[in-house]
């Protein structure tokens, strides 16, 4: 199997590079995601999450969806990760470096078990499904102009709804987090 792998690598180095261009960030993604789950230090967890976001964005770009990849980077790294970090700093200023009780009670084991069952089930279905064995099509690209046309054409209602949702979320978040006048 390893020989096959090496053979294909040598036969078509460009394809080899192209594949690893997807797989390498995907591996980083998994490692960072796993680290984010088990890290005791919240800040480290958040930074690992940020790294996994970046890796996910690169996966998207490598898969040809560069617009989505950039949006992923801009929104998740630029905004969501920063929000999480901010929230951590705002809520735990006193125990910044103290490792909190990461897991507690019997629930966590059950949670991990559920996660594991879900993983096994999903993998089972993925590897038995005929659909998943499809080979990679030659190429796929999503030009920005086409995405823009689609957003303003077929998906304009959804776009407007998202705009309303984001505005409402902005206002709502500001109102929720606003300082209470009466204690």
């Amino acid at each position, binding site marked *: 199997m390893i020989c096959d792998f090496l053979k294909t690598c040598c036969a078509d180095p*460009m394809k080899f590079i192209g594949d690893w261009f997807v797989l390498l960030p995907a591996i980083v993604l998994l490692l960072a995601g796993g680290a984010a789950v088990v890290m005791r230090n919240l800040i480290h967890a958040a930074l690992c999450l940020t790294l996994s976001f*970046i890796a996910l964005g690169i996966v998207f770009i490598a898969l040809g969806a560069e617009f989505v990849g950039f949006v992923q*980077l801009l929104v998740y790294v630029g905004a969501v990760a920063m929000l999480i970090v901010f929230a951590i700093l705002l809520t735990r200023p006193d125990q910044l470096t103290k490792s909190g009780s990461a897991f507690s009670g019997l629930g966590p084991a059950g949670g991990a078990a559920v996660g594991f069952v879900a993983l096994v089930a999903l993998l089972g279905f993925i590897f038995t499904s005929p659909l998943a064995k499809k080979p990679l099509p030659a190429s796929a690209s999503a030009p920005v102009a086409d995405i823009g046309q689609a957003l303003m054409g077929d998906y304009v209602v959804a776009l407007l709804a998202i705009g309303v949702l984001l505005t409402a979320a902005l206002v709502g978040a500001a109102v929720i987090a606003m300082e209470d006048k009466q204690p």
Partner: protein
Amino acid sequence: MINPLERAPIELLHWFLNLLGSFGVPQWILTVVSAVIIIGTVIGVFLGLFALMSVMERKILARAQNRYGPNRVGFFRWRLCGLFQPVADGIKMITKEDLVPRTADQVVHFLAPVVMLIPALMVLAILPYGRDMVPADLNAGILYFFAVGAGTEVAVFMAGWASNNKYSVLGGMRAIAQMISYEIPLVIAAIIAAMVSGSLSPSAIVAAQGGFAWGFLPQWFVLTPWGFVACLLFYIAALAESNRSPFDLPEGESELVAGHLTEYSGFKYAIFFMAEYVGMFAVCGLLVTLFLGGWQAPLPFLVVVPTWCWFFGKICFVAFTMVWVRATLPRLRIDHMLAFAWKFLLPMSFAAFISAACWHYAGRGPLAWLLSLAIVGVPYLILGTAFSNRFAVSRRTYQFSE
């Protein structure tokens, strides 16, 4: 008509690649070599600019403050107006001891400068330095710029938090708050230009600003009312994004020692310093691309000058105004700064947005010009009056002996 120097860098690269190809080097190696050469050139040029800027800024500030500034470092007997100061600085920085606080988060503390430098260098990829001189002509280039630039915030936070120092954390949080706040007008101002050009690609945006009206007036976006407003908004937001005066309060030494940089020294500090300056040049480059016509010449007869000269000339001009602003304006207070972003820049950027749309749909003629002026002018008057009333200060009286 076209200056032979114009295409010199491209021709040089092609010649070198052809030379290698004639030796039978495989194609994929050629691609890699070409990429390495381009990346190395761009980084080299910007590092040179950084070195030049670091000394020129000190000299300009000194002149503004009626001093000489650095004027000693040179070769043996030749001082050369102190232009070799950066070399001395660099040597000092590299040889200095690299202190890491014992309670710091060692890994994150180490990673922060790296994470800081990478996006600052990566964003340089999409700037069109001259005609056909774009390292990576992405069709979502502007988006790439901001997406990659978002990494800077992570780096600042990492630096501030990992130092495990009160001032560092506060400075880092201030910096993030400031960056997030000013990112919005920055992005909206950029989107306006992209919207009018109909493309997110920087080279297309530069192309959209080509040509001359009535044979002499460049059609840069800065010369339209909405473009002027958007350019100013972008400029102000860029000042804040690159933590420059008057928005340099994340590292305001009077309050926070040096903000998130407090616990950094030696080479790591140098990297931060470099990343900030390169980031500043990058954002200046984007400003030039979006509003100042990119590599386009300002007057028809000046077309003979190579386009990349124009581009770097414009970058230097914008960088010079930034130094000028630093010499002129005092630092803002944090709440004023955030209020300014949310209550003035954001509404004004919306106004410029609407104004640009109206300008486009009214036919881009003189009438459209006036309409657009009205649409940005009225909100400006209202907001400006409100703010000047809100922050009205009485005339300060100075007490000093005659």
